């Protein structure tokens, strides 16, 4: 029995605005519980929400980055439900007039995963279970979120993972969120159902709050298996909310959702309707940086860089900026890339390091070094050593390269070295005269060593062959 998968993903992303969506509290992660709070975000009687306009701008930017159409007119709605982490017993969200609609994320295969809508809303607080008690921390309450709802276009766990990863990359690059799944600034709820080919779609279940890209795949595989077992046994799948537990590697039912929740949505009376002008939308669009996939394409197709190397840098906004800036100064792209992935990355080992890109030298300093490689004034290996020391000290390349190193090799000196090569390798000379041409490599080795890598190999070859005749 080969079942087909239908999958849609709802992604919640915390926006990296300085303050919360409805009050001036900080959005900074962590902090002692209940210290990043105020009357508004703890739902005190009499407090009122005030919409932070930066949230609208970030959300529009996010929508434009995934090809959405922006609704110029929009408003907030109340979503009413009871849960201890929701202080007002309603979440201020958007129901029937989301800010962004009709976008897509394109996978490497070319397939487009359509995005139905993106809306803005506030995050709830956090429940912490400890010693038989449950504690509530409202620091996270009121942090601005965008909820990105995809259409059910995803057909495999791998596609799901790729979709989530691309969203993460895009949002990070655009600068609206750090999208750290392990910190909760990006959360995926995966909806899946299975059906036989040419049959109607099955009943779907929702796996909530998956906290890593690989867990998306694992959770989906397990749930697909579970649903398949149910259907094979002749039973029906019950619409439920599930959770994936990484420790036990199991997917289990949290609660069944036979009847859809009635949130009694109505327009939020405390927040007026808002308007984003077409001019403002274009202004925001103009601030969109080149997105990762476009960047990769440019590196590989326009610059001719090897794809696997380009892939090592294309994800990281700061790394690619460093790269592009150095190249724009005239340094050779291939050499800049190699220096980054070999030496700079030795200092920036983790994903986080690469995101933060905390290094002591500027792209200009790297460009200066690479230009020396380009003009063959120093060898790549030497350059790597120098670069390592520059990264440690932050000093310019001139501190580490002596003047004489930079000087070129005169023809006279080259000839003398070539003569030396011939004199030192009589056997090789004989081999060459006898037709074993490969023996010339020994000569080259000598020449390179004695010229400290400065010799032009073609010139040296000419001279040596002349001398041997």
């Amino acid at each position, binding site marked *: 029995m080969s079942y087909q998968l239908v999958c849609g993903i709802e992604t919640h992303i915390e926006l990296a605005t300085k303050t919360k969506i409805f009050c001036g509290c900080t959005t900074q992660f962590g902090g002692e519980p209940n210290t990043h709070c105020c009357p508004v975000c703890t739902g005190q009687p009499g*407090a009122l929400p*005030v919409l932070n306009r930066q949230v609208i701008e970030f959300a529009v930017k996010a929508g434009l980055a995934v090809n959405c159409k922006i609704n110029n007119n929009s408003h907030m709605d109340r979503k009413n439900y009871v849960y201890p982490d929701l202080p007002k017993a309603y979440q201020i969200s958007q129901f029937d007039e989301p800010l962004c609609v009709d976008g897509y994320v394109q996978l490497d295969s070319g397939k487009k995963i359509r995005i139905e809508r993106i809306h803005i809303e506030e995050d709830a607080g956090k429940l912490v279970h400890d010693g038989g008690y449950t504690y509530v921390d409202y620091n996270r309450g009121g942090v601005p979120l965008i909820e990105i709802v995809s259409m059910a276009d995803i057909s495999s766990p791998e596609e799901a993972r790729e979709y989530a990863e691309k969203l993460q990359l895009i949002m990070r690059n655009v600068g609206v969120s750090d999208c750290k799944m392990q910190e909760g600034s990006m959360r995926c709820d995966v909806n899946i159902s299975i059906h036989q080919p040419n049959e109607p779609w099955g009943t779907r279940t929702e796996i909530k709050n998956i906290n890593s890209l690989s867990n998306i795949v694992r959770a989906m595989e397990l749930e697909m298996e579970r649903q398949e077992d149910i259907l094979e046994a002749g039973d029906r799948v019950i619409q439920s909310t599930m959770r994936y537990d990484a420790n036990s590697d199991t997917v289990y039912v949290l609660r069944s959702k036979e009847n859809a929740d009635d949130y*009694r949505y*109505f327009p939020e009376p405390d927040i007026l309707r808002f308007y984003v002008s077409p001019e403002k939308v274009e202004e925001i669009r103009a601030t969109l940086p080149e997105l990762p996939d476009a960047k990769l394409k440019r590196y590989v197709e326009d610059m001719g860089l090897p794809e696997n190397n380009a892939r090592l840098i294309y994800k990281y906004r700061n790394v690619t900026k460093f790269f592009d800036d150095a190249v724009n100064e005239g340094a050779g792209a291939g050499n800049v890339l190699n220096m980054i992935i070999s030496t700079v990355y030795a200092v920036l080992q983790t994903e986080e390091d690469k995101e933060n890109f905390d290094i002591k030298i500027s792209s200009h300093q790297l460009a200066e070094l690479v230009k020396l490689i380009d003009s063959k004034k120093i060898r790549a290996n030497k350059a790597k050593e120098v670069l390592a020391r520059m990264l440690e000290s932050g000093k310019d390349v001139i501190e580490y390269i002596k003047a004489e190193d930079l000087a070129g090799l005169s023809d006279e000196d080259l000839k003398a070295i070539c003569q030396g090569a011939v004199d030192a390798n009589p056997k090789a000379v004989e081999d060459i005269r006898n037709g074993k041409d490969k023996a010339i490599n020994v000569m080259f080795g000598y020449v390179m060593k004695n010229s400290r890598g400065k010799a032009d190999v073609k010139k040296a070859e000419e001279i040596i062959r002349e001398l041997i005749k």
Partner: protein
Amino acid sequence: MKEIIAPLSKMLSAGEISSVELTEKYISAIEQDNKKYNAYVSTAFDKAIENAKAADKMIAEGKNTLLTGIPMALKDNICSDGDLTTCCSKILEGFRPYYDSTVWTKLRSQGAVMLGKTNMDEFAMGSTSETSCYGAPLNPRNTNHVTGGSSGGSASAVCANIAAYGLGSDTGGSVRQPASFCGIVGLKPTYGAVSRYGLIAYGSSLDQIGVLSNSVKDAATVFDAISGVDSNDQTSVDFDFGNIAQSLDKADVRGMKIGIAQEYFDGINDEIKDAVFEAVKFFEDNGAEIVDIKLPVLKQALPVYYIIACAEASSNLGRYDGIRYGYRPESFNDVEEMILKTRTQGFGDEVKRRIMLGTYVLSSGYYDAYYKKACLLRENIIADFEDIFNKCDIIIAPTAPNTAFPLNFKGASPVDMYLSDIATVPINITGVPAISVPVKNDSNGLPIGMQIIGKKFSEKTLMNAAYFYEKNGDVQVEDFEGGVML
């Protein structure tokens, strides 16, 4: 009607009395009279003396305003840092907010003195203040009768001279109707004129903080101080009213067009009708022009109001769950039970009734038929009023179809009670300002109030007309003898 604020301010400035002395007089009066009227549900006398000392300093430095050093009362749903604020509900028993409402911040910065919090219908839901968990406040004009509601405590305190003025809240008439029942002045400002930050919400699109006072000039003075756009309330509006209190001395109604709608007088008893028509005649005799207007939508106003108010209230009151503040039951097995018990034990019957109504009209399957329809009708009513204000400057109507009921009036079902709001709710639905001023007493000696209604942001026009009437008309509601008399 007597002006209290300006004369007191003059005495304070002249050094005839200090704010501390004045405050102590009010404190004694409260200690003596509050058991008669149950106007205050909590007092903050220590804090009041502290405020008074600070006020005296301001006066000594010549930095005082009209309101400096004058003792007043806040309705029990208006937050002030550290003071009991309970909406007269068991579910907020012991609650002390840790922040100030904007109106109190403004008054305090002028050196106002807060004596305590006044009685009200629980969560402002009611028209007699009898749903208070502390028992009803009593009408100083006749203590067998109600004060009206929901700002009944403030009305009672102001009438009995145990507060120089009071703040209340008006969602469907809760400042105007008690003012009418107690024979004092009650002002409901334009929606958005006064910040709602710190007003514990009932119907968010309807609520406004209003003023209860013994004269129109006092109401204007307080309104001048508390109005203004507030960055903490996005529904507040930036409008320059100018200094209304100062403008009153030039009040004149010559050429003013006064709209009279028959629909407003339907079903009103003759005594009240006659009293209001007499006042209208007075305006006419002084140069105003009476314009006949039609308000057929008026009868839709009540169901529209109750649907919207209850819907918003059902959502606004969701937060009372015993977790962060207020009442929490002694025993429960889990969070769900705790929340259930908190709300079952903490809320009174009328509050529960309105929460259920509100939940129902918002629920899936009924939303379109009730809430959505009510919102569409609301737009119609707003448009009708806008149209009318093209034809006239103000509308005059009775404030209520009755005078103060006897306490525990058994004759009325909850819906009958709702019907008595007919004259006041259209004003909240449309967001326009209105003021209630006393006219005369009925044959039982209970005051009748007249409502003057204007278009949005026309508080100046409104209060000028009201002041003119108060000064020159034949107001037959006597000044109350008792409390602090200076």
